């Protein structure tokens, strides 16, 4: 795992990613209908650590989220989980897929 020190800032400043209050309790993963071990808790951890390669490796997982808010409704720390997932998509869309009006 390589650490990109600019990732956290790029996610936070431009896209509003904020999982700093996450208690790492795992309720979100337990309730998520996707049943993916990594999601969303560990993926947020990667983002907080600046592990850009891990995010890119798990693009499918990021885009699998239903944005259904089942997790968020039950998060004890009030983390805006779906806003964070969208922030990851905005980042991946821009920086990795080059989507958008001026994209490839």
């Amino acid at each position, binding site marked *: 795992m390589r650490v990109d020190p600019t990732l956290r800032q790029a996610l936070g400043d431009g896209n509003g990613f904020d999982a700093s209050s996450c208690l790492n309790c795992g309720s979100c993963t337990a309730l998520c209908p996707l049943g993916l071990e990594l999601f969303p808790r560990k993926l947020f951890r990667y983002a907080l650590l600046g592990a850009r390669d891990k995010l890119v490796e798990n693009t499918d997982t990021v885009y*699998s989220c*239903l*944005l*259904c808010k*089942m997790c968020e*409704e039950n998060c004890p720390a009030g983390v805006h989980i779906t806003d964070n997932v969208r922030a990851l998509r905005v980042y*991946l*869309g821009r920086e990795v*897929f080059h989507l958008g009006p001026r994209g490839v």
Partner: protein
Amino acid sequence: MAPIPIQDTLGMLGDNLERRRSVLPISRRRATAWSRGLEIPARGPTVLYTGQMYQLVPAINAMTHRLSGMEDSWMAGYFGLARRMNRLVNLAGLMARGSPQEVREYNEALRNIARLLLAAHVEFGYLYGVDRYAGALAHDEGLDETLQRHAARVYEDLKAAGVTEVITVDPHTTNLLRSVYPKIVPGYELKVRTYLEVLAALAPKPVERLAEVVTVHDSCLYARREGVAAQPRALLTESGVTIHETELSGKATQCCGGPIEMLFPKRSNDIAARRVEQLAKSADRVVTLCPLCLANLRRVGRPGVEIDDVSSYLVRGYCPRVPNGGAGAELTEPRHAAPAQAVAGA
């Protein structure tokens, strides 16, 4: 063998929104066909805003069907080419025409909604060619720049038409117009209510008692973001419907899998199948509140379980039928004999 490529699929849908103002562009004729014969005025301070969601479902179903055939196949490798071609011709539109029966069915749901509002003496217009897709997919997939530009154009059209209030018909358009646009469109000011909220506030008297037992599948967006769960239940119950609630209902509802139907069709179907199993434990009639939930749950289906849009129940409970009309009789288009309700104050 490859999964559906995210970059090219989202790229194609985003290109469509930028160039053709919808992720899956359909003709104006098709988008407005549902309103034929209803004679809804073409303007007014209050309009019924469909956001084309019901009209798009047959196209989305056809697209999802095609994509699921490509998932993990050699064809997935040709998406880049398809995206480049789509910039020149509306390839996505050609790939996703939808079956005529589905087109009729989803149009009928919109007709039912309009009839319900007319029967409750709500005054509203319909903007025909200006009633556009609101951009749900761009929002969900994080295509923020595309969404922002699209939202500004949608709002400009509404303002130019003198609209101050919209009545929405689905959770995605409601969420965008009510909770997302205000954050991304400068100076945005529009009253947004769903037809279910409008009707529930007016508490119309039912014209027929429906002695039916159903369970309700709540939309995640309606229940957890927009506070729409009690209103459809009140309307159903008042017309005689008995609701057997499933354990995961209201704010605890379980998603139908719809939001990932295009990128991950198999995963989406698995989630839908699980949800249908849950619902079937409570009743063999399932009521949905969103056209996408309806499509996704029906796609997997289950023998003996009927899944229908809430409007198909409400129209029977609240709209009068023509006298001596037998089975399949056309419902009357209510005349504006009674004084119209002021929607804004309802």
